[in-house]
């Protein structure tokens, strides 16, 4: 029982990191990326491969994955950043599709659809994270660090530039801000932070395959921050909590017909997304007046 809750909390922490890192570009920079699961996946594969071939230490896997994700995000996002707004979303969706194809087709590295199995238990300072409790402690610590990093980043002049770009890109450019550089950096930072979640995920589940990094996953993360509230520090974490607890809670509603239970779960979940978007689009703890920054 305790194990179940610990497991759920670990997944929530990982999702919290993921959602927080995406919120960094969506909520503070106005860059709507649907390719987040792709970077999550790249990090997870990197983490798994490092664990299998180099070292099981999180202190090695996480920085390497962060660097790889940041570099790849630069290569990939530079051309995409040339287009704006909705166009970037569509372009990022394309990247997500390509990433999935690469994950499933580049068999020699990713193991194809079969994925990579038997990722060993993570270690940190030589201490093995075999127990769920220690894994949770590390995940929570990472979540706290990432959240604090974002909290601190948006308060620097870089963060102010980001918000200036989010609110009015043309005006920001007119004030001499280097819009392309700022946005690219933001995407790189976001991808690097997202890598933390990817590595933790690979170690926790000890199995990586492409199905965990589909467009559905990207949208799920998106839903987390939209439900929780964009541009807030704790919104993404709340969103992650809800998205994980909703299906888990539904399985306890024993009066639902068991054959269709899974489908009913999905229906409730989809309907919740729709209703929230109609009636509480700023998210549960969103900014009071989102109109000015959200509308085109």
């Amino acid at each position, binding site marked *: 029982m305790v194990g179940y809750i610990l497991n759920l909390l670990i997944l929530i922490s990982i999702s919290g990191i993921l959602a927080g890192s995406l919120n960094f570009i969506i909520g503070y920079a106005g860059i709507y990326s649907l390719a987040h699961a792709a970077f999550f996946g790249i990090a997870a594969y990197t983490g798994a491969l490092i664990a299998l071939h180099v070292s099981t230490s999180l202190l090695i896997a996480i920085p390497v994955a962060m660097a790889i994700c940041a570099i790849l995000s630069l290569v990939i996002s530079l051309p995409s950043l040339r287009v704006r707004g909705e166009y970037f979303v569509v372009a990022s969706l394309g990247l997500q599709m390509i990433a999935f194809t690469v994950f499933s087709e580049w068999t020699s590295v990713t193991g194809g659809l079969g994925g990579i199995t038997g990722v060993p238990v993570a270690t940190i300072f030589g201490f093995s994270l075999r127990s769920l409790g220690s894994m949770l402690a590390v995940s929570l610590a990472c979540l706290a660090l990432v959240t604090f990093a974002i909290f601190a980043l948006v308060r620097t002049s870089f963060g102010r530039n980001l918000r200036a770009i989010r609110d009015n890109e043309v005006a920001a450019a007119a004030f001499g801000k280097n819009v392309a550089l700022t946005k690219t950096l933001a995407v790189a930072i976001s991808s690097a932070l997202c890598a933390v979640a990817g590595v933790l995920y690979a170690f926790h589940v000890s199995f990586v395959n492409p199905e965990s990094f589909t467009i559905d996953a990207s*949208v799920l993360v998106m839903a987390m921050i939209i439900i929780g509230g964009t541009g807030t520090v704790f919104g993404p974490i709340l969103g992650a909590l809800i998205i994980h607890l909703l299906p888990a809670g539904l399985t306890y509603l024993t009066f639902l017909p068991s054959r269709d239970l899974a489908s009913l779960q999905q229906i409730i979940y989809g309907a919740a997304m729709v209703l929230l978007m109609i009636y509480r689009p700023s998210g549960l703890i969103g900014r009071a007046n989102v109109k000015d920054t959200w509308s085109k």
Partner: protein
Amino acid sequence: MLFLQLLVDGLQLGALYALMAVGFAMIFGSTRVFHYAHGTTYVIVGYLFYYLAERLHLPWWAAGAAAAAAGVVFGVLLDRWMYRPIQRDEGSFFTVFVASFGIAVVAENVIIILFGASFVSISTPLTRVSDIGGGIVVSYLGMFSVLAAALLFVFLNWFLDRTDVGVALRALSENPDLVRGFGLNPRKLSQYAFAIGSLLVAPAALVATCVTGLTPTAGHRVVLISIAASIIGGIGSLRGAGLGGLILGLAESLAVWKLSTGWSEAVAFIILFAFILARPSGLFGNRARV
């Protein structure tokens, strides 16, 4: 020989892709709604067609027409009861998208409860190929796909060039505020966009129900293809989306000519990637407006 056969197959596939993509591009271009539930329209049309034709034994043309009509109604109702309220209060592009995705999830699972998760398909001799000479084989439905696409494109061209609503829809995609400035009602226009966009996905759904079979989750792929084709063709350009769809269909088929069959899907994405890298505005796209 193989090349010609693949070309013919690719044309059939591309024709249907083109229709789906143009439908999506029409809705996206003129209303800025990222209509993820476009794929849901496809699935609804297909399943209704299956239900009417295979279970209720309606004549195929009546079943097809009723299913297509239902798709149009679905699109228009979504616009009115979901996208409009969201856009009115919030206007966020992304809020609309998430809601649309939610609808896709709901519809998919309702269909699973109603019809089960496995394939449904309509058995008809029309899907069997026959030799049209030189070892090239085509099925009647394959020819129908190409013909339907051609006819719909002619209709679409006429509609966009020669009718008030068509011209207004093009205007809407250029500048929605100015449409109001002219005294036209963008909301009414967007319903037309949804009606026509949804109608365009119907032939693909009807053909797929017979040829490839249909699953409740088929809608996702429809959206992915539509989006990829829209990017390749240039967002905002209907001609571009149509051409993009055709290119994707042809590429998917012709890829196996020299390459291993495993590449057929990836080739489409490689083309997409090349466009994103080298020409993010696509074939006919204007540079994104601010």
